[in-house]
């Protein structure tokens, strides 16, 4: 282990090499994804696939880690902000910045060992989970909301969807009703309130779950997770629905047809 990572040597002799060998995908480089990118670079992750079609702008300077006033003024793509930040911390990392929605480059997504979902909406999450399951990729999803009311309220969650284990629907994180409601609201304008500190809590929790997955320092949880965040009480708590779901087989993914790319046309050249 090099001196650079000596303060995290409790993660094991091989941890540096294992992090370097890992390629992490991040879908969404806003308030949550930018935090995650920064922490993964510090931890020593060697490969990054960054998806986000958006540009830096003044309204997202309140929460996008790594973005500067000049980036907002010049409308620098968020993936390039993240790439600069990652390379500044770890110049040896390999970064694929893809300034587009993740659905535009499935081959890049499939090349990831672990994916972080930092996107809005239930429909997008359901799609990302299906694509990750098809490529047998653990997905760590984070999300937060500021709920309007008297007074305002902050909540969020971190959910790990592990191939072969309960999925978002199994644990009740995504319900058909949510997808239907979202479909009906499609096209409604307006940006939800977003702030940096809940994203930081959720991103740090997601990175801790990732580290546990690659080089576990303890055996407290078995890989899956459904953790709720109460931003008003400043607490993180395991959601009991996961324990119930763990006792049953996932009925949503599991058939052989749920794996791979059904539209893939393999190369069929003739014998040499």
């Amino acid at each position, binding site marked *: 282990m090099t001196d650079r990572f000596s303060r995290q040597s409790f993660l094991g002799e091989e941890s540096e090499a294992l992090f370097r060998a890992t390629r992490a995908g991040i879908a969404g480089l806003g308030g949550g994804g930018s935090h995650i990118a920064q922490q993964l670079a510090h931890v020593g992750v060697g490969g990054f696939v960054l998806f986000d079609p958006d540009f830096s702008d003044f309204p997202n300077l309140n929460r996008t880690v790594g973005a500067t006033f000049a980036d907002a003024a010049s409308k620098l793509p968020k993936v390039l902000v993240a790439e600069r930040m990652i390379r500044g911390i770890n110049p040896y990392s390999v970064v694929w910045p893809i300034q587009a929605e993740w659905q535009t480059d499935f081959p890049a997504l499939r090349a990831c060992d672990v994916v972080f979902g930092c996107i809005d909406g239930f429909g997008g999450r359901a799609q990302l989970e299906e694509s990750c399951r098809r490529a047998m990729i653990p997905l760590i999803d984070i999300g937060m909301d500021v709920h309007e009311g008297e007074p305002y309220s902050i909540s969020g969650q971190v959910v790990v969807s592990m191939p072969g284990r309960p999925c978002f629907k199994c644990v009740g994180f995504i319900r058909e009703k949510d997808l239907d409601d979202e479909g009906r609201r499609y096209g409604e304008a307006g940006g939800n309130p977003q702030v940096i500190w809940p994203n930081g809590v959720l991103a740090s929790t997601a990175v801790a779950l990732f580290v546990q997955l690659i080089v576990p320092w303890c055996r407290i949880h078995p890989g899956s997770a459904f953790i709720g965040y109460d931003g008003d009480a400043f607490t993180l708590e395991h959601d009991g629905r996961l324990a119930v779901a763990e006792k049953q087989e996932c009925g949503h993914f599991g058939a052989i047809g749920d*794996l791979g790319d059904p539209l893939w046309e393999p190369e069929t050249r003739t014998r*040499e």
Partner: protein
Amino acid sequence: MNIHFKLTAALLDEISTDLRRPHPFAAERAAFIGCKASACRGGILVLAHTYIPLRDDCYADDPRFGCAFNADAMRAAMQFALTNDASMFHVHLHEHSGPPWFSRPDLRESRRFIPDFWNVKPGLPHGTLVLSADAAAGLCWYARREKPIRIAQITVVGFPMQYLGRSR
């Protein structure tokens, strides 16, 4: 081209447990794994799904090999490939620690029977894996090339993730 083979920890456990069962006369067991595949940047992902053990009566009593199987075993594997549009990977186990590799008879026989899967599923990648107590290696035949491609990465997806073979 990189070939990345993935399987879940639960499937690896099922495979390792079954391959360690003694056989009435064969020195070692073998099996097939039904897989799906897709393109990924820089290569191909092979995703293991179904373990298909060889029935005891599918082994041939041939003292030249630790394990030899008859045509029934091959027919069952080919039927699985046809029915499920699957890539097929032969698998066996060497009982030692550290990176395993194929014996010369393993390589000779694999070159003979693996390309036969193209008769039912042309174009799909098919191959062979060898496991040890803590590592794995594999070869993959793809796009009707005569020579197999060494599998670059074998990942066990579970808690924790395990990179059994990696050349990234």
